[in-house]
C-alpha cells in the first residue's frame, strides 16, 4: 500500500525555535498510533477467512473447514420446521405469543431461521453432537460451551484465531490516544 505525501500543502509555524509542520507527522507517537490503526485494520481484513463456506454439497464445501458466520458455527437449515416452542423453549415462546401478532411473527421467524438443534439447548435436551442419536445438523463444537465461546470472542481468546471484540477496542483506544496526543501537543505549541 503506497503512502502518498507529495504535493500536499504543509502548514508550518515556528514554535519555541522549532519549525513544526502539521502535514509531516513528525511526532513519533502520532505516527505510531496511525500505523497501529492501519495495521490493525489490515489485520482485521487478513485474519478473516476470505469466504465463509456455506453449507452445501459441492466439492469445495466438503473438503474445507467452515468458519463461524453470523449464525455461529452451526448451520441454518432454511427448510427447518421446528415450532417456536421447540426452538425457543416453551416459556420464551409463550412470552412472545403474549406480545400479539408481532411477537408471534418474531417467534415464527426465529423458529424458521434457527440453527439445527437450537431448540434442544433452550429446552435443556441437548444431547451433544457426538452423543447417540445426535442431530445430524449439529457438528461437534470441539467441547467449548456457548458461554466460553462468547467470552473467547469478546476477549480475543477464541480458538478461531479472530480477534473478536478486542480489535475494535484496540482501534478505538489507539484513535483516542492519537487525538489526546495531538490535542496536548497543539496546546503546547499554540
Amino acid at each position, binding site marked *: 500500500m503506497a503512502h502518498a505525501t507529495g504535493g500536499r500543502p504543509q502548514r508550518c509555524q515556528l514554535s519555541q525555535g522549532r519549525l513544526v509542520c502539521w502535514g509531516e507527522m513528525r511526532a513519533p507517537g502520532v505516527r505510531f498510533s496511525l500505523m497501529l490503526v492501519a495495521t490493525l485494520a489490515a489485520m482485521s481484513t487478513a485474519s478473516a477467512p476470505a469466504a465463509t463456506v456455506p453449507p452445501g454439497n459441492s466439492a*469445495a464445501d466438503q473438503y474445507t*473447514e467452515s468458519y463461524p458466520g453470523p449464525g455461529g458455527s452451526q448451520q441454518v437449515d432454511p427448510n427447518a420446521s421446528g415450532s417456536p416452542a421447540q426452538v425457543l423453549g416453551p416459556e420464551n415462546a409463550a412470552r412472545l405469543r403474549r406480545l400479539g401478532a408481532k411477537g408471534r411473527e418474531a417467534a415464527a421467524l426465529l423458529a424458521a431461521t434457527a440453527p439445527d438443534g437450537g431448540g434442544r439447548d433452550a429446552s435443556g435436551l441437548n444431547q451433544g453432537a457426538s452423543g447417540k*442419536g445426535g442431530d*445430524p445438523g449439529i457438528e461437534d463444537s470441539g467441547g467449548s460451551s456457548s458461554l466460553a465461546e462468547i467470552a473467547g470472542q469478546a476477549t480475543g481468546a477464541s480458538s478461531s484465531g479472530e480477534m473478536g471484540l478486542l480489535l475494535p477496542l484496540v482501534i478505538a483506544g489507539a484513535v483516542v490516544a492519537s487525538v489526546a496526543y495531538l490535542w496536548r501537543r497543539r496546546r503546547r505549541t499554540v
Partner: protein
Amino acid sequence: MVEASRSRISPCVVRLWRRFALPALVGALLVLVAPAGAAARPLITGVSGMSEDDPIAFQRTAAAGTQLVDKPLGWGSVAPAEEPSDWDPTDPGDPNYNWASTDLWVTRAVQAGLDPFLIVDGAPSWAQRCQAPAPLTGRLCDPDPAKLVAFATAAARRYSGYFQGLPRVRFWQGMNEPNLSLFFNPQFKDGRPASPTLYRALINAFYAAVKSVDPSNTVIAAGLGPIGRGRWAIAPMRFARLLLCMNGRRDPHPTRGNCGGGVHFDVFDMHPYTTGGPTHVPRGGDDVALGNLAKLQELLTAADRAGRIKGRYRRTPLWITEFSWDSKPPDPGGVSMPILARWTSEALYQAWSAGISRFFWFSLRDFPSEGAPFSETVQSGLYFRGPTLAEDKPKRSLYAFRFPFVATSQKTGISFWGRTPTSSPGRVIIQVRDLNGWRTAAVARANRAGIFQGVVKTTYGRNKRGYVRARYRREAAIPFSLKPVKDFYQPPFG
C-alpha cells in the same frame, strides 16, 4: 583467499561473511550427524486420480519418484446400464462388462514399472437400493453388498494375473470417501448416522470377494474425507468410531457386542486435506487433517487391540491415498509456488512422522476448469495442464514431491529429514548456502527405504535465516528455507 579478496569487496559483504558464513564454516568442521537410518520405515509415494492412459502420463508418474498409481474403477461404467436377465456378474469375461479402458490403464501402469491400485467406486442404478434426493440426485445411494460381491469378484479375477494375459492388481479399495454425501448416501437416516453401518456391510462383502480370488490381495477401506459438515458429511473420527463400533473421543474403547463379527480390511485410508498448512489442526473435534493424524492412529490401535479390525496385520496401517493443495498459478486462490514446494516436502515429512507408509498426491496434472470456478475444480497437479498432455509443464512442487527434504534450525544445530528420489539407500550430502554458494555441511546416509535424517551441529541458521538442501547422487532437493512459514487459512482447492 578470503583475505586476498577482501580489498575488492564491500565492507557490507565482509560483515555478512563474518556474521553468517564464517560461523557456519567453523560449525561445519564440528559437524556431527546423528545416526541416520535408525528407522527403516519407508515412505512410498503414489499418484492418485490418474485417469489418463497415455504412456507419457505413467512415465511422468514414475519419474515423480512414485511406485503406486491409483484410479477409480467405476462399477457403473464397467457394468451394463440395465441388469441383464441372463448373465454371470462374477465372470470377468461376461460380454455385458466393458473393461477396455481399465485393461489399458492397468497394462500401461505395469509397463511403466508402477503398482496399480484400483478403487471400486460408484454403482449402476440397478445395484443401488435408493435414489439420493436433490441436490444430490445421481450420487451413489446404498449399493447392494450382494451385488458388490459379484462385481468385486469379477474385477479381482480379471486382474488376478491369470486372466487373458492381463497384469495383476494387488491393491483394492472399496468405495471412496463414504463419509461424504458427494460419494455415498444416505449419510443419515431418521437423524442418526447411517453411512458407517451401510459401509461396514459393503467393505465386509468387498473384502470377502477380493480375498476369495487371492488372499494376498490388499483391501483398503474408507478413504475418508477430512471434514464433518452438518447433514452432508460425517466427520471422519465419528465415522471411524461408528464403523469400528468404538466409543470415546479421548480414550477409544469398544462398544458392547461384537460389531457383527468385526470389520474386514487390511489398511485404513484417510484423505487428510487441510484448510491451512501441513501442520494445521482442524477446529472440529472429529475432523482429521494432516496435522492431527495421531488421533486416528490411536483409534485404529484401540480397535486393533479390541479385535474390531479383521485384517492381515496385527497393527492396521494407515495410508493417505489423497492429499494436495491447488497451486497459484493457475488457481488464484491456490498456494503460491514457493510455499507449495515447501509444504509438499513438509506434508511428506508430517505424514512419515505420523506413521504413514504410503502417501499419494492428488493428482498428476491440473484438471481442466471448463468454465467452472477455480474453487470448484482441482488445480493440484504435479504438472500444469497444457493444451495436450505432452505440453504439460512441471511445477516446482513436483521436485519437492520427488525428493522431499525439510530442515529446521534448532539450538543444537540444523535438524533435517528427507527421502531420496528413488527411495534407495546411499550417501546424501547436506549443504548450506552462504555468500560463496552451496557448501557441504554434513554427510548423511539414507537407509534402505531411502530415508535420511539427523542434526548438523552448526551455528548456521541460528537466526532462522539461510537455506539448506540435500544432494543425492547428481540430484539436488529444492532448497529449504530456515525461515518458518506460519500456518494460515488456505482451502485445499483454492
